[in-house]
C-alpha cells in the first residue's frame, strides 16, 4: 500500500509543478513527472513479489509470473510521452524566439 501512496504523492508533485511554476521548461519537466508517476503506478499494478518475467519462463503458463500486459502498455505510453515532450520543447523554443523570455506571466498576448 505504501508504494501506491508514494506514487500518488509523485503525481501530486507533478500537478503542483504544472500549476505553480512560471518557467516554461519547469512546466514541461513537471508534466514529465506526472507521466512517470502514472507509468510507475500501472507497472506496480502488475507487480507480484517473487514472480518471474513471462518471457524468461520456459515451463508453461501456470508458473508464477508478473502480468506482462501493463509493461506493453507502458512502452506505448512512454513513446507517446516522448512525442508530446518533443513537441512541447519545440514550442518553447519558438516562444522564446518570439517573446525573448521563458516566463509565462510575460507571455500573454491572448486573454479575455
Amino acid at each position: 500500500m505504501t508504494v501506491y501512496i508514494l506514487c500518488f504523492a509523485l503525481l501530486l508533485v507533478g500537478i503542483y509543478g504544472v500549476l505553480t511554476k512560471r518557467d516554461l521548461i519547469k512546466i514541461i519537466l513537471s508534466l514529465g513527472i506526472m507521466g512517470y508517476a502514472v507509468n510507475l503506478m500501472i507497472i506496480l499494478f502488475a507487480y507480484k513479489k517473487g514472480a518471474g518475467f513471462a518471457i524468461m519462463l520456459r515451463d508453461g503458463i501456470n508458473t508464477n509470473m508478473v502480468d506482462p500486459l501493463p509493461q506493453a502498455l507502458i512502452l506505448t505510453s512512454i513513446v507517446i510521452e516522448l512525442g508530446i515532450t518533443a513537441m512541447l520543447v519545440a514550442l518553447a523554443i519558438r516562444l522564446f524566439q518570439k517573446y525573448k523570455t521563458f516566463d509565462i506571466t510575460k507571455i500573454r498576448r491572448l486573454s479575455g
Partner: protein
Amino acid sequence: MILPFLIIIPLLAAFLISLISGEKDNWAIVLSILAVISLLALAIFSFFTTGNKTFVYEMSGWKIPLTICLVQDALSSFMLVIVNLIALTSLMFSVTYIRQHDSPWKYYALFMLLITGMNGVIATGDIFNLYVFMEIALFAAYALVAFGGKAEEYEASFKYAVMGSISSTLILLGVGILYASTSTLTMANIAAELQTKNPMVMYWVAAIFMAGFGLKSAIMPFHAWLPDAHSSAPAPISSMLSGVLIKALGIYAIIRIFYNIFGAPQIFLTIFMVLGSISIIVASYLAMGQWDLKRLLAYSSISQIGFILLGLGIGTKLAILGAVFHILNHAIFKSLLFYNAGAVEMALGTRDLRKMGNLRGAMPVTSGTSMIASLSVAGLPPFNGFFSKLIIIIAAVQSNNIIYAIIAVIGSLLTLAYFMKVQRYGFNGENKITELNQSISLGMKSAMIILAVLCVVASILIIPGIREVTLDPVVSVIMNKTAYIQSVIGR
C-alpha cells in the same frame, strides 16, 4: 468489414503525402480529397447498413478479450459520418486558404493524421486503444493550431498542449485503475466485470475520467484553453476543432464510457446537468463581451456543448434524442460560422467586428450563409438548431427539471443576442465595404453553400418516418446500457 479502412485510408494518405510532395501541394490536395471522399462514402454506407445491428471486428485473428476490437454500431457510424462530412468541407475550404502559409503539404499530412485519430477514437472498442488514438489526434491538433507561425499561435498551442497532456495523464491513470480492478481492456468486458465489483472503484475512475474528458470537451470549469486554441488556429482547423474534435474526443468518449460502461449512475447525470447549465449561461455571457469574431465563436462552442451535456444529463429518451441531434447540428453550423470568419479574415485582414462593415454587396455568399448559420445557432425555425434546442427544453420540462428548462431558454436568448451583434456590426454595419484584399475562391464558396444547405436540410431528420431510420437507433444504443455488453461479447 468497413471499420479498419476508416483508419487505414487516412493514415496511408498521411504517409504518402509526406513521401511524394515536393514544393507544390497539388498531389497533396488530390490525395487528401480522394481519401476523404472515400471515407465519407464508407461512413455513409456503414451508417445506412448498420441500423440496430452491431458489427465487431477482431484484429489479427485473435478473439475478445485478447484482441483489440473495433465496434460498429449506430452511435459510432453516426459520429463517423459527422467527422468525415466536416472534414470534406474543411478540405475544400483549405485549398486556397492554406496557400497563404509556407509549405502547405505539411498541413495536409497533419490533417490526415487528425482524421485518423478521430476515426480511431470513434471506431475502437478497447479503452487503451482509445487513449492511443486520442493522442494521435491531439498531436496533430497541437501542430495544426501553431501552423500559422505567429507568436499568438505558439502561445495558444503551448497552452493547449499543457492542458491536453494533463488530461491525457489523468485518462491514462483511469485506464490503469480500470485494468487493475477488472483485468481486461475491452470496454464491453470492463462493463460486465464492473457490475460484480465494489461500486466505489467505478466512482473513483468516473471522477478521474470526468476531469480528463471534461478537459477534452471544454466543459465550463475546464474550458480555459478552448477560446485561445480555437481562435488562433487557421479557419478550416478551427472548424475541425470546434465542429468535431471536441465532440469526438470529448462528448463521444463521455457517452461511451459513462453510459455504455458505467451504466449512467444518477449522480453523474446530475453533475452533467449542473456543469452543462453553468457552461450555457457563463459562456454565453462571456461571448457577449467579445469583439474578436473567432473568439466569440469559440465561447459560443462552449455554450452549445453545454446544451448537449444538459440533454445527456436529463437522460430521458427525448432528451438524448435532442442531444444527439444537437451534436450533428452544432457540427454543421459552427463549422459554417468559422468558414465565414476565415473568409472575412482573408478578404479584409481583420477579425475585429468593429473594423468590419456592410459586407452584403462585396461578399454576398459569405454574408448570406453567415445569416443562415446565425439564425440556426440562435434557434429560430425552420433551421435545424431550433428543433434540437426545442427537444432538449421540452424534455427538461417533461422530466420536472423546470429550472434547467428556464436556464436553457435564457441560454438560447443570450445566443440570439450575441449573434445579432455579429450580424449588426460584422456583416450589416454602417461603413459600406466595396473592395477586398483577396477574392473568395470557388472552393471556399462551395464549402459554405454546402453547409448552409445542410443547415436547412438537417431539419428533416426529425420528421417521424425519417427519424426512425436515422436518429432512433443512435438513441437506443445510448439508452440500452447493457445491450452494448451483450452485442459485443455475447455473439
